[in-house]
């Protein structure tokens, strides 16, 4: 299958390792990976801030740029929700409505694509560490992703998953929210870090780099003994 990998703007610039890991996994499974260099962002920051007109300008480039893609895979529940769930609303009653709906229907979050679409859970990975998993809110509640990452992690050799309390509660990132209300955002993150630390895990794993940026930002500042890592990087570990 020809898989178009959609790399969110901040993953591209800040977390290229996660995206490279996805390429490696998809290719190892025998798929051809494509990447559209002309697309930089899904438009979510403008959309979430209420600037739908500006969001449409940005999003239109994604909708048109991916028109010919067979299937689109995104390594982020947040941007995945943007394409899958919010594009149809954003482009409702506009000339791009039909194309936006078509894109929504062929877009998958990375772990969801592996487990549900491809039916793959064992990637032959080895990661001999104790980890805990953070469910990103958009992936969890907009896309219904809960068991997919756990099914993948279960097959990783040497890995022990310890669920934290309130695994489903928000890390406090929320895009522009984290800058508009930095103290409330950080207080939310503190709760998340405390739950993770209680598990005594070595790593916090998630399918969303944006959540991990928030969590790692707090952990580094507070010099806490736990690391964050994207699930794709765990799945390519040998």
């Amino acid at each position: 299958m020809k898989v178009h990998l959609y790399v969110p703007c901040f993953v591209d610039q800040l977390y290229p390792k996660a995206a490279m890991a996805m390429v490696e996994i998809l290719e190892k499974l025998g798929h051809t990976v494509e990447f559209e260099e002309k697309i930089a962002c899904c438009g979510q920051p403008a959309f979430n801030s209420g600037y739908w007109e500006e969001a449409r300008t940005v999003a239109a480039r994604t909708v048109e740029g991916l028109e010919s893609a067979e299937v689109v895979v995104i390594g982020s529940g947040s941007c995945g929700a943007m394409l899958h769930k919010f594009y149809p609303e954003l482009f409702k009653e506009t000339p791009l409505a039909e194309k936006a709906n078509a894109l929504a229907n062929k877009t998958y979050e990375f772990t969801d694509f592996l487990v549900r679409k491809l039916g793959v859970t064992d990637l032959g990975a080895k990661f001999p560490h104790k980890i805990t998993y953070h469910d990103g809110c958009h992936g969890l509640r907009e896309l219904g992703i809960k068991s997919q990452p756990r099914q993948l992690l279960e097959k990783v050799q040497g890995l022990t998953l310890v669920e934290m309390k309130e695994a489903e509660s928000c890390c406090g990132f929320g895009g522009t929210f984290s800058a508009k209300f930095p103290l409330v955002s950080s207080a939310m993150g503190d709760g998340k870090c405390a739950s993770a630390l209680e598990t005594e895990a070595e790593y916090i794993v998630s399918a969303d780099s944006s959540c991990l940026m928030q969590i790692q930002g707090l952990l580094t500042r507070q010099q806490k003994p736990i690391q964050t890592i994207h699930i794709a990087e765990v799945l390519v570990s040998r």
Partner: protein
Amino acid sequence: MNSTFSKDFKKNSGRMSQDLTHRAVIKKALGAYEIKRDENRSKYLNWQEARQAASEIKWEAVNHLDRYLLEMTKNLEARGTKVFWASNAEEARQYVISLAVEKKVKSIIKSKTMTSEEIHLNGALEKLGYDVVESDLGEYIVQLNEEPPYHLVFPAMHLTRGQIKEIFKRKLGSDTSDLPEELTMVARNIMRQKYLTADMGISGANFGVAETGMISITENEGNARLTTSFPKIHVALMGIEKVIPKLGDLAILLPLLATAGGGQQITCYNTMIGGPRQPGECDGPEEFHLVLIDNRRTELLADAEQRDALHCIRCGACLNVCPIFKNSGGHSYGTTYQGPIGSVITPHLRGLQDWKHLSSASSLCGSCTEVCPVKIDIHHHLLHNRRNAVTQMPVWWERIAFKGFSIATANPALFQLGIKIGRVFQPLHFLIKGTLLDPVRAWTQTRDLPEIPAKSFRQQWKSRQ
């Protein structure tokens, strides 16, 4: 642009979010609720289907409000109830005040009604010299402490037993331990006398049943029953969206409200009131007045996209799971209705530009929508409020920023350049970190930034080709 309400919220929520004692008190209070809620939710054969059924009942009612309100009031009036239609808060207040003047009322007792908070009734009555006492224990505590309810269901959730003991000591001269039983007895002794002397009882209404012409009140302390039956005059305040079609609808709505709101299977007291004392009856009030309050609810009704916000049964479940509420605290909102649902409806009830900041104060995590027993699309309505606020009056610097964003993302090379500049300067960032010169101060105040890697994915991809 930046309203006082917005500045106050930002300041107060920021301050409260750093208050570790507050954080612990709320966590403890909600911890007990969560256990009971989950236990009772699991007793439903299918909780999701129950939510669906409840949401359909409310949909039917809200979308045919004209019909059901008339059916309800016709039935109530046939039994001698006086119905008053208040289009705004002022009309509702004036009706109650005029009635109190006309009937020479001196003392008023109230059971829990958020609608009275919404129309600021207590203040108006007290200004005219009336003695107004809240009979719900939580409401009574915050009344004594001279503060608004912290939470629309648990008004005194933020106070510890020790603090309540001190409030009672200061205001009532009581000398007890901080045991809930002892504190309750103090309030109870005072309250029992108030029921006997009050000339007017004011209550809310959880539901209004069109089919039978009754209001339904749900509570745990029995105080609403006494408030509505002892005084000669009973006045009930009800938002127009509280009407439901059939008596049988309560079979699902009452337990759902109890479980979502208080973690209970069913509340201790459920009362139906269909009119004043009827001929041949030996008790009950001589007069029953129902004040139906619009207060801009019909404007929300006209908004097809967000109309389902009128489904709200004020259970508070969305507050209880909201990380913004838990960290900011109920008082930071400065609204009658706090938490996610308050952030959705307050802009409709009190003005979008003044209250839009509450819709921005959300990470859009969606926990609220997930638990709402009547399936209101709460967190998506926060997005809709944000969009509506911008459409009505964009913030100039945000518009410029997003125009710039739209241009930058049209050209990935430009985007790449920005990041490159960032990478070059990042090693020097420590010099300005957290100062006014720091462009990312909002982030770095509490968090570190990730290190910008030497090569972006884009660059690595290119070199692979």
